[in-house]
């Protein structure tokens, strides 16, 4: 065993981010680590690499004990890592980034620098040569060397980060979502790179949301959920494990896990093809309150949404479902005017959303409850709600409006004077929704309302969503918890890497195995 974890635990307050995980990574293997959003994968990596302290448990890299060591020592022992949100030295050149990676094995030259002895010139030439070789080994041409890291295209930045990690000459390389935000061909390139590095003898711990990538390159995959390891095995074993499917697709409230699409998995391939081919396209409503045509959105070089079209009629609940990074939140952010589309149109009640100001869009009645809730943690519940209405002049109406909203969420009424940060995750989500309601939405955009919530809380949040809908608010819902979203949605669209893969009524999709495929890969 190269890396051995024994009952590693890390709690943040009441959140059990990593809750007794044991894991073995074999020398020379590619070990996958997957899990839904908030499962504790990154926390586990941070514990292994010394960024977050061990609470209890132990870890060894071969015979070296890791617990209690600071991050730079662990790096020195030979665990290199990349970061989920690329952390290059942005204002330095690509070459300098790799050279810094050689820090540990570079001889101290402080005094020699003062004398500028020629001895070091040779040394430096050697290192520069090494650095260029490393750039080449991750597929970056030497012309990239003198360019500033920040100016490189996104995919190249990912590769540069790997080159920098390799400069440590690691025994174990931990890749934290190396393919996040990449298009299919870039992902293919990343997959080839990972396989090539492994073929050269490097042990890799791979964390990614892209199941196709993880299932494709890993010999073993461990699955985390709510900080616990729920499965560990070959990709095939893991992807058909009912616990894993439940963790990814969520639960449909009273529905049984059994009904998870494709969970029985008789002859999956054919089943999927049939389903995908015969899938009834959702009947698009004639009179739409929201009309999205061929919407394309990019972040610099990354195309997050590619030619998406859909409609929402007044009074509907429409769900956009799909795995992490599929582009769902980007669509919502574009609709509420936070991001501008590259091409395509979006109209809400006659208003051109591609060009209208975000404030105009809210005034027209399109209100977004953002992912991650974004409440003001130090302010009280009441203050959070009052701030949402500060632009209004008539105090009495506002007050009445707040009381109305609190009646719908009695638990918030009880806690009106508590600071919002002290509420549980579910209550915070309700506060975020309540705040959205104060803007008198006609179309409410909900972004991942169940994110990071325990199952009972998810039930409660969804009950609230259904009630709001009954009162006449149209809802566009973005969810990872597909089964739950499909259970309440009139219609739904399955999004994968920025495209609409399938659409249909909530019920149709609930029984469609292609949905599972979109999440867990094939």
């Amino acid at each position, binding site marked *: 065993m190269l890396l051995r974890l024994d009952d590693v635990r890390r709690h943040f307050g009441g959140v059990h981010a990593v809750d007794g995980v044991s894991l073995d990574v074999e020398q020379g293997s590619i070990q996958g680590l997957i899990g839904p959003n908030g499962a504790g994968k990154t926390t586990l990596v941070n514990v292994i*690499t010394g960024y977050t302290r061990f609470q209890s448990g132990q870890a060894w890299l071969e015979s070296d004990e890791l617990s209690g060591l600071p991050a730079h020592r662990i790096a020195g022992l030979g665990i290199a890592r990349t*970061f989920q949100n690329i952390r290059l*030295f942005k204002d*330095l050149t690509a070459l300098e980034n790799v050279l*810094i990676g050689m820090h540990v094995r570079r001889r101290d030259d402080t005094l020699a620098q003062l004398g500028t002895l020629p001895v070091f010139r040779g040394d430096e030439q050697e290192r520069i040569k090494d650095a260029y070789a490393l750039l080449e080994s991750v597929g970056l041409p030497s012309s990239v060397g003198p360019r500033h890291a920040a100016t490189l295209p996104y995919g190249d930045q990912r590769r540069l980060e790997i080159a920098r990690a390799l400069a440590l000459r690691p025994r174990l390389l931990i890749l934290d979502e190396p393919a996040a*935000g990449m298009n299919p061909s870039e992902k293919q390139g990343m997959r080839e790179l990972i396989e090539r590095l492994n073929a050269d003898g490097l042990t890799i711990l791979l964390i990614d949301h892209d199941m196709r990538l993880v299932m494709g390159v890993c010999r073993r995959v461990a699955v985390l959920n709510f900080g616990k390891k729920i499965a560990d095995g070959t990709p095939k074993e893991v992807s058909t494990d009912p616990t894993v499917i439940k963790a990814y697709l969520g639960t449909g409230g009273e529905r049984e896990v059994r009904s998870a699409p494709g969970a029985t998995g008789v002859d999956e391939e054919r089943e999927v093809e049939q389903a995908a081919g015969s899938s009834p396209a959702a009947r698009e409503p004639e009179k739409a309150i929201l009309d999205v045509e061929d919407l394309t*959105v990019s972040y*610099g070089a990354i195309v997050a949404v590619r030619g998406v079209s859909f409609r929402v009629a007044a009074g509907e609940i429409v769900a956009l479902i799909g795995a992490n990074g599929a582009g769902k939140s980007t669509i919502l952010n574009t609709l509420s005017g936070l991001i*501008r589309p590259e091409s395509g149109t979006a109209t809400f009640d006659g208003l051109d959303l591609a060009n209208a100001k975000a404030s105009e869009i809210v005034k027209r009645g399109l209100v977004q409850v953002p992912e991650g809730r974004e409440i003001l943690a130090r302010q009280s519940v009441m203050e959070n709600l009052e701030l949402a209405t500060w632009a209004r002049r008539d105090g009495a109406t506002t007050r009445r409006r707040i009381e109305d909203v609190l009646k719908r969420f009695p638990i918030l009424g009880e806690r009106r004077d508590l600071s919002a940060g002290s509420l549980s995750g579910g209550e915070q989500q309700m506060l975020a929704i309540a705040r959205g309601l104060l803007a008198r939405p006609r179309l409410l955009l909900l972004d991942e309302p169940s994110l990071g919530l325990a199952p009972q809380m998810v039930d409660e949040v969804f009950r609230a969503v259904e009630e709001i809908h009954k009162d006449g608010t149209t809802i566009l819902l973005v969810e990872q918890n597909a089964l739950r979203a499909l259970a309440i949605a009139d219609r739904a669209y399955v999004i994968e890497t920025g495209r609409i893969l399938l659409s249909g009524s909530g019920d149709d999709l609930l029984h469609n195995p292609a949905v599972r495929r979109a999440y867990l890969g094939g």
Partner: protein
Amino acid sequence: MDFFIQLFSDPIGFWNSHTLLISQIGINGIVATSMFLVLYSGQLSLAAPGFMAIGAYTSVLMELYWHTPVVLNVAVAVILAGIVGLLVGLPVLRLRGVFLAIATIGFVEALRLGVILNVPITGEGLGLQHEADPLGGVPIILVSLVMVVFVVWRLTKGRLGSAWSAIRQDEIAALSQGIHVARYKMIAFILSALIASYAGALEAHLNFFVDPGDSQYGVTRAVQILTFAVLGGTGFVIGPVVGALIVTLLPYIFEGAGDYINIIAGIFLIAVIIFRPQGIVGRGGLAIVRPAWWPRSRARAPSPG
């Protein structure tokens, strides 16, 4: 204007009639380099005036009371500043950004109000009058400036400098490359304390008087030193020195402005910060500043994360 005319028409006369000004530029340049060092390692430390005070008072007091040779006095002053730097750095360097700035200002003010203005030996509010040897005058100061700049420049090119660069850009990423972040920050902090203390000792000997005022060893001085670095730019060692040169010369550059000198100097500084955010010495040209109401062609989406 007369000032600059004389500089070119009669350089020798200029040199002789402005020794104090030239010395002050040299000393400010040394302090600016000490500031560069902490900023280069990603630390917004404003502790320099405190270390200057240590340098000034230690060297002058030794001279007044023990009559030891000036070289020894300065050496002791510099070493003492290094020790104080270590003691102050241990708790304070855990802080980052503006919190570090506030904590170091706390150190500066505690030293000035709590020690210098309270201990009889320092002359308290009256300062210290002395008739020490002016330490060789202008040539020594300018040679010191060149040496300090050279040493710091070479250090930034070595292993130490690459670690500082990494820490400045991203501490977390630096840790992942095996860089002992806390140690390298401490090295930079102590080196900058040594340099500031040396500048303080030179300055005290230049003036025959150690002035405990705020503009000498207090927040005002700290802000002035920070201005050297921001104005000159921190991309290159020479940047803050150029900043020090310009700031020290401002009263002469805007000689004709009379009472409005401070307003005009302020506008000049703001203009530099808007149009050359990277500082006067740095890569690239003038920043293009587009007012918010200016029509834009096509909005680009922000990058994710």
